[in-house]
């Protein structure tokens, strides 16, 4: 049994469906993480300062990764059809990839919504046309 003490995400207000007190209690009472921290601190193996430093370092690392990921392009478009099966690729996957290739050849540059969308992908769909 696990219990989430935060809101699920920035879009979630969990107090709409569970009492605030229940969450507060879970944070304090019988919380294995809190208990473990107290145990470590009681042995002198951990401290509030170290905790704060760790939090800052991890948060910074996550945010840096996050920002970097946001600048990356989407994967190459042909990857939509890979890793559906291992081994020999079935005919339907092969033919459907060909079908999309045909559509991209025809409309990929002519149709603005597709042209703009393709720019978001690594290789802009060109690798699919060359497959």
């Amino acid at each position, binding site marked *: 049994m696990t219990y*989430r003490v935060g809101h*699920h995400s920035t879009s979630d207000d969990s107090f709409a469906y569970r009492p605030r007190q229940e969450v507060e209690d879970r944070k304090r009472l019988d919380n294995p993480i809190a208990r473990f921290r107290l145990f470590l601190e009681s042995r002198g193996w951990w401290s509030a300062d170290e905790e704060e430093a760790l939090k800052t370092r991890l948060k910074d690392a996550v945010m840096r990764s996050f920002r970097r990921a946001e600048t990356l392009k989407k994967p190459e478009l042909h*990857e939509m*059809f890979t890793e559906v099966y291992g081994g020999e690729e079935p005919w*339907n996957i092969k033919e459907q990839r060909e079908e999309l290739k045909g559509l991209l050849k025809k*409309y990929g540059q002519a149709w*603005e919504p597709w042209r703009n969308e393709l720019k978001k992908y690594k290789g802009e769909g060109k690798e699919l046309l060359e497959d």
Partner: protein
Amino acid sequence: MFTPNRFTYRSLEKIAQYYCRSRRWQSTSTEAHPAGGHLPSLSTSNFLKPTRESSLRTPGIRWVDEDTGHMRDIVSGRETRKMNMYQAIRDAMSIALTKDDTAVIFGEDVAFGGVFRCTMGLAEEFGRERVFNTPLTEQGIAGFGIGLASMGQTAIAEIQFADYIFPAFDQIVNEAAKFRFRSSGQFNAGKLTIRCPSMAVGHGGHYHSQSPEGFFMGASGIKVVIPRSPIQAKGLLLASIRDPNPVIFMEPKILYRSSVEQVPIDDYELPISRAETLIPGSDLTLLSWGTPVYHCESAVHMLSNTPDSLAPFVPSSLRSAKVELIDLRTILPWDVEAVTESVKRTGRLVIVHEAGRTGGVGAEISAEIQKRCFLKLSAPVKLVTGWDTPVPMQFEKFYMPDALRILDAVVETFGGVLRRLFVICT
């Protein structure tokens, strides 16, 4: 003592994914950004009825009036209210609970209003004995519903996402569908209706985007219904709830907020197993259901009003072609007569659905139509579908059939004939 939390990560993940940043549970405003994303073609769709007059004249509408107990056909004096699709669905369930003392609604989080708000306020209005949460077990929800229905209760179950109906597959296919047959009609689960949000929204990934209707095609004994708009959703849901068979009611989730109509406030039904012709035509039949109906509308528009950039791909001779657009509405058992009649007139059929092609509903329909209309067909039946891959989060724009792919299929279906004629004539 703590009350065990009935939520798991998955249910909350689902909630979060569909809630806009600024929204809160108790809000009833309909003005905010659509939960599932935007569908541009909806804002200009001619299929949505923005006035009371057009709403009350919805084709096939059957008023279910309390005072007589019979269905009357009187339009005057009836009122409508502006609703989006989730409000229309809520309205239908509210009517079901009001008129049918045996009706109950249950599912994950429905007592709080449901992740898409379809049951908002129903628990407060009708009591928690009639609108209640279940544990996170789709098989349990379906089984519980079958039991209730077989004891004569009207069971309205919600599976939080159609993607999660698969744990209930055994209950639906082996129990609900076969109940009547295996008891020689002594018992049935006909009072069961299972609602589930389905289809894609643009960012749902593998598990919040699927259209599983095809998996139920072989489960004779159940019906599968998919509405395209608020008016349709209310009338078809009430008909589904009252149908003597278990019905799976799949609600295209992108339409919950983005489709808005004047919806009649009275009790009414729309017929199950009847397709609806949305645009009459004589040259090609375009068949779809749910969200892609609107992409079809855009494609038909693009055919007659071809944008300059697409002019090289759409022969000018085709721009006056009359495409007939049909919303199938019921997937099982589907309206074979309407589709056959149309294709016999037009000689061409293009079927559009979001689910993958292999084993999809389009394959079933094209087999039947090619059998019935073979000598009338001027071109092979063409399918515009998702590819046979999981719905890919990163590639959804090039996975789902869009207006351009539909337009291309329409042009190709015409073009094949022109090329053949050309060969014959020269």
